[in-house]
């Protein structure tokens, strides 16, 4: 039962990643692309981590997984802010 829920969560996470990747390739503007990418990072990774936490018995491993998610959250948010700021100032690639 637990494995079923975990599988569903992981599948949902992968769906978000798919959506993010399609957004990266197909959306017209850098801001739209950043939006798609950060959604994939936040929600997609969050659902993946939730599924993996259900699959493990060790509390330490579960806490480390959540820590990974929080770090990726912070890094992707900061990165998106920096890229968007640079694009808005016109210094972007």
């Amino acid at each position, binding site marked *: 039962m637990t494995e079923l829920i975990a599988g569903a969560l992981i599948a949902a996470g992968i769906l978000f990643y798919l959506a993010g990747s399609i957004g990266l390739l197909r959306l017209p503007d850098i801001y739209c692309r950043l939006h798609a990418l950060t959604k994939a990072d936040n929600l997609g990774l969050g659902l993946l981590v939730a599924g993996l936490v259900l699959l493990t018995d060790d509390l330490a491993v579960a806490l480390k997984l959540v820590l990974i998610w929080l770090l990726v959250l912070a*890094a992707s948010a*900061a990165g998106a*802010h920096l890229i968007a700021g640079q694009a808005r100032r016109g210094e972007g690639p």
Partner: protein
Amino acid sequence: MDGIALILLDALLILVLLGLAWATLESRDPRRGVVLFIAFGLVLALVWARLAAPDVALAEAAIGAGLSGALLLAALRDEPEAGHDPSEPEPATPARRRLPSLTNWALGLLCLGLGLVVTWAFVDALSVADPERLAGQVMARIVESGVSNPVTAVLLNFRGYDTLLELAVLLAALLGILALGPERGGYAPAGPVLAGLAGWLIPGLILTGGYLLWVGAHAPGGAFQAGAILAAAAVIRRLAGDRAAGLPQGLALRALSLAGVAVFLGVGLALLVAGRPFLGFPPTWAGTLILAIESAATLAIGATLALAFVGGRPAAWDSPQQRRALDPTQVRNQP
């Protein structure tokens, strides 16, 4: 995991790996090439995890993907033409050398031939019936080595001389980088977002580096991974506007860079003086000695890789006369 799923995973990983490598070399924009190279490094880290090599996976992710990518991007930032051919105005096709078609084909055939010969040798080597593996010899004597992580035991004890020479290679590369010119341009002081992130990340990175150093004795980890994490902290500080990248200056920095080779060599010579072979750790002291050497090596690797990112001699090192004497434009004007 059952057989079919594992084979599918392997096939997928290898396809993505080779695809990313191809795309890295074929991309028109050099910056895109470098970013694809970083992605390649991360997929390679996954492959290492698949091949039961967690130490190597950590090192590949931190050094091979992270620090290498940062180095290449920093080099591209200061010299955007580094990725282009100086003689071509604006290449419409990927900047491949305009080799005459015959040379191009000959080169391709040569590489293909070399690949086939190596494949033949590799398949031949793998088909030996019951090979003598070094893993058995290592595991038989690992209790004498002072650590329980076999890779750390091999790196710091059984083949410690190779690691000493590797630290010396790092030092030699650093000396070259420092001798070749002043540091690269700095970065603007960070806005609130980057400053806030750095404020949380850098202490966390230092803590993680210390943890990896300690845990390397009995679990995946070790001096190289820890040193790379410390270098990453220095890179973030430099990106946030600190020109010194958080490193000490002057004599302290010089001492830090030499620490790895110095401590390793010192321990080896002390053992010689004590009557044992060079780098022959006595089993009761081996763990302590390895920790001491790894600590010094961590600091040295962190400082070396951070200075590699800085890209040259830090501005604070020389007096103004030395700086004038070593300026390439000045030297040309002398009679």
